[in-house]
């Protein structure tokens, strides 16, 4: 049985580990070794990043958008995850699960397109608001961080719901009933019992959504317009228009470092939760 691991190991060695190692090496080289014969090791790409306000602002914008997306995904995801975990009928549970998964089956590009039709100046929301006389001028709902965060939240809520539902489902309902029989209201029982017990799920879901949203490219690009510049957008810019694979590598290493911290934290939380199973 043991040898069956080899195809996967080979695939990952050649198309995952090696490329990431190359990415790291490229970030430390002064030029592209293919067409520049005299390349040497340098830290200047990292120095360039940390000494330019444009890049630091992009890093901060990436983290800020990630944080706000995570927060709103948590606020929208928790009630739905609770409903999913506590659904009594099998049909209701299956339908809810389908409603949560259906958006995941729709590509990121398509979902971003949907939000553009909703939030643009002539979009569904502005047309409706103007028709109702709520506003005369269209509200600026996209081509800014607000639109980016709304669309990202929509894209990543399902991940939050699925992570949370698993944890909430494991909280014994009898604990809540016990609290209620001791005189607590439904809300008190939830706040004092279920909510604290689902804290690891909140943490795991938040780390997951944060890690996903800081690496988003399509949505910040299309929803953010010229107002939003994030790390992934900078990375692609460096490759496609500045032709600087070394600086792109450095940007990649910085994004990777942030993600790794999140992944390790996520694994720690999940391992604590299930007694050491981690990502599996």
């Amino acid at each position, binding site marked *: 049985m043991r040898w069956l691991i080899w195809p996967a190991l080979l695939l990952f060695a050649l198309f995952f580990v090696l*490329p990431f190692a190359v990415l790291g090496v490229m970030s430390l080289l002064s030029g592209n070794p293919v067409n520049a014969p005299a390349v040497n090791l340098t830290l200047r790409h990292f120095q360039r990043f940390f000494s330019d306000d444009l890049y630091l602002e992009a890093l901060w914008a990436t983290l800020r958008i990630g944080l706000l997306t995570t927060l709103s995904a948590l606020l929208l995801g928790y009630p*739905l995850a609770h409903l999913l975990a506590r659904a009594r009928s099998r049909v209701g549970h299956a339908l809810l699960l389908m409603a949560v998964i259906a958006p995941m089956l729709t590509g990121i590009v*398509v979902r971003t397109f*949907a939000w553009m039709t*909703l939030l643009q100046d002539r979009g569904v929301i502005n047309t409706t608001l103007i028709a109702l006389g709520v506003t005369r001028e269209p509200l600026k709902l996209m081509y800014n961080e607000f639109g980016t965060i709304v669309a990202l939240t929509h894209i990543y809520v399902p991940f939050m719901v699925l992570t949370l539902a698993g944890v909430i489902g494991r909280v014994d309902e009898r604990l809540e009933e016990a609290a209620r029989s001791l005189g607590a209201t439904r809300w008190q029982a939830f706040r004092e019992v279920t909510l604290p017990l689902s804290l690891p799920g909140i943490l795991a879901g938040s780390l997951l959504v944060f890690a996903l949203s800081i690496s988003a490219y399509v949505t910040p690009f*299309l929803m953010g317009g010229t107002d939003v510049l994030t790390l992934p957008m900078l990375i692609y810019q460096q490759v496609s228009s500045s032709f600087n694979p070394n600086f792109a590598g450095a940007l990649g290493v910085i994004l990777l470092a942030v993600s790794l911290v999140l992944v390790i934290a996520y694994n720690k939380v999940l391992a604590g939760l299930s007694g050491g199973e981690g990502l*599996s």
Partner: protein
Amino acid sequence: MRRKVGFGAVAYWGLNAAILFFLLSPIAIVSVFAVNPTPYIAFPPVGFTFAWFAKFFANPDFVHALWLSLKVAVAVLVLSMLIGATAAMALARGELPGRRALTAFFMSPLMLPAILTGLALFQIYLLAGIGRPVWGLVMGHTVIAVPYVIRTTLAVLANFDRRLEEAAALLGAGPVRVFFEVTLPLIRPGVIAGGIFAFIVSFDQFPVSLFLVVPKGETLPVVLFNYMKFDLDGAIAAASMVSIALALGVVILLEWIIGLRAYLKF
């Protein structure tokens, strides 16, 4: 004691209804624009037309991209089922040292930014002078898709009754026969479920493709993205409906195959 419907229950159900609306209405709205005849995105809809679908299928860029996406996704489906299922078998049965760490390692493409996987592959192809061939794109997608197959297959293997295999062996079946007649049919639902994920992950894949496609050889999501930078009309909505329909078609097809088998078994 009479149960009264309090403010709390109303708030709970109302809130959840609103969240579900937030989750599902954007997707529903796309279907409206796919059949609305105005030349740009306009609300409310004023009529019904199939012109956008006609425009989509008449545009060679779109059709080429759709074909390429489908071909890549099928290749990724096959490759990741083979590689993922074998790896899951080895992880569950092989008594490998560091099994837990190895499993986490194979799951890591799901957590690390896919855009970095794309960038890293772009750089290594650049250094190796490979260029950007279609097989390079397929391998990139496969790395992202294999974790899904490993995960679903491991889940099935965890509930696997090994005595069935032992019984077959006791009755004289060789290891190859045991594998094909006992093990494989039992893990099949897990492998196929993983394959469904693999297909959809590849078909909708954007960040890895962005770095690995060549002009005129782009996958559908990349073509749609480039189109959307300049134009926002019903053709995108029609393309969205086509890609949703295809993804759904594959899910239903594979689900139907497994579903039917499950039905025959009981």
